[in-house]
């Protein structure tokens, strides 16, 4: 035989549990929290807004921004024009034209290496595919253009551009880069106190074991 279900009289239970204090003070407590938050906001104790051009959010060490082509010791591009990145690219935004390198051990070098920044989807597959650690990414995200031609970046711009030290290095192989150097001196990543103390954990380093010191490596 099926067991009889226990019957609960909800209204009776609610009546027994309710009280004047709960009914009146409960909403007031909640309202107090709301008003506290409002006061915090008005007095500037909590400020959700990042005032963008002056303040910036600190990006992760693995942020995928505009690409960088790394260099050899002598400053020539490390790329050997193997087409691995162009093959891996889901957006087909990389155009490489190889040329023969005088050094027989290197075989090829890119006579042209163009990336269409507008078509690029910043997936980082090229960085993963590269066998030579020749292409890495920066934390630079403020790219915009008035024409489409401006966003075809050639090898010169990919290797060195004046705004790079400000943004620094982004997504790159998760180990010490053996021979690669970059053609600029990255600044130390500064830890900045950010607006919004509640939700942001800005001091958390995402991958602390990554070492990349272009002066030593």
């Amino acid at each position, binding site marked *: 035989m099926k067991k009889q279900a226990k019957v609960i009289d909800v209204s009776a239970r609610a009546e027994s549990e309710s009280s004047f204090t709960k009914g009146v003070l409960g909403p007031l407590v909640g309202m107090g929290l709301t008003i506290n938050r409002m006061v915090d906001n008005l007095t500037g104790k909590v400020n959700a807004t990042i005032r963008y051009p002056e303040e910036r959010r600190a990006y992760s060490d693995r942020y995928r921004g505009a690409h960088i082509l790394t260099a050899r010791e002598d400053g020539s591009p490390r790329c050997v024009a193997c087409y691995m990145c162009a093959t891996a690219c889901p957006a087909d935004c990389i155009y490489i034209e190889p040329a023969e390198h005088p050094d027989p051990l290197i075989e090829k070098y890119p006579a042209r290496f163009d990336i269409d920044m507008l*078509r690029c989807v910043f997936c980082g597959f090229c960085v993963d595919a590269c066998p030579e650690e020749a292409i890495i990414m920066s934390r630079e*995200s403020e790219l*915009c253009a008035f024409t489409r031609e401006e966003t075809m970046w050639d090898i010169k711009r990919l290797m060195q551009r004046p705004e790079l030290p400000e943004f620094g290095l982004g997504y790159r192989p998760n180990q010490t880069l053996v021979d690669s150097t970059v053609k600029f001196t990255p600044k130390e990543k500064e830890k900045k106190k950010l607006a919004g103390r509640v939700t942001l954990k800005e001091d958390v380093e995402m991958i602390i074991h990554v070492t990349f010191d272009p002066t030593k490596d």
Partner: protein
Amino acid sequence: MAKEREEVVETSSGIITTSVDFVFNWARKSALWPMTFGLACCAIEMMATGASRFDMDRFGAGVFRPSPRQSDLLIVSGTPTLKMGPIIRRVWDQMPEPKWCIAMGACASTGGPFPTYSTLQGVDRIVPVDVYIPGCPPRPEALLYGLMRLQDKIMQEHPTRFVFGRGSVSQEQAESREAAENAAV
């Protein structure tokens, strides 16, 4: 340098018209009302830009209008499919002058990772784009940066030429002077 530039500006447009130009441009760039128009994932970033963390209202561009008749700025945010193309064009045509367009993200700018039969390869095939913003999707900062560049572009315009005309200066002369002016800057 400054004096030279002043002379160029004065001969090309006159001091009154440039002052009026400045006021017009300042008013236009300070109240860029965008169209509420999101096509795909970039629209999420556009919403984030409008929300309190990044707050596009600080640049006067946070009032997303529900009607193209009230908006100045079309942010094409997302993948424009061929099916959506005529609608984008229609929204653009319904917007009153002056109007500007931002192609936000890889898809809207070039088609991005979709070189396919169904995707429009860049929204600039159907509407004139002022600013292209790379990214997939661009961060809110990138959108704000693009917006600031658009405001810079608006400050370069000469709206009073349509009212007062150019006097005896022909279109070619005005353009060549403008080019020289820009080169001097």
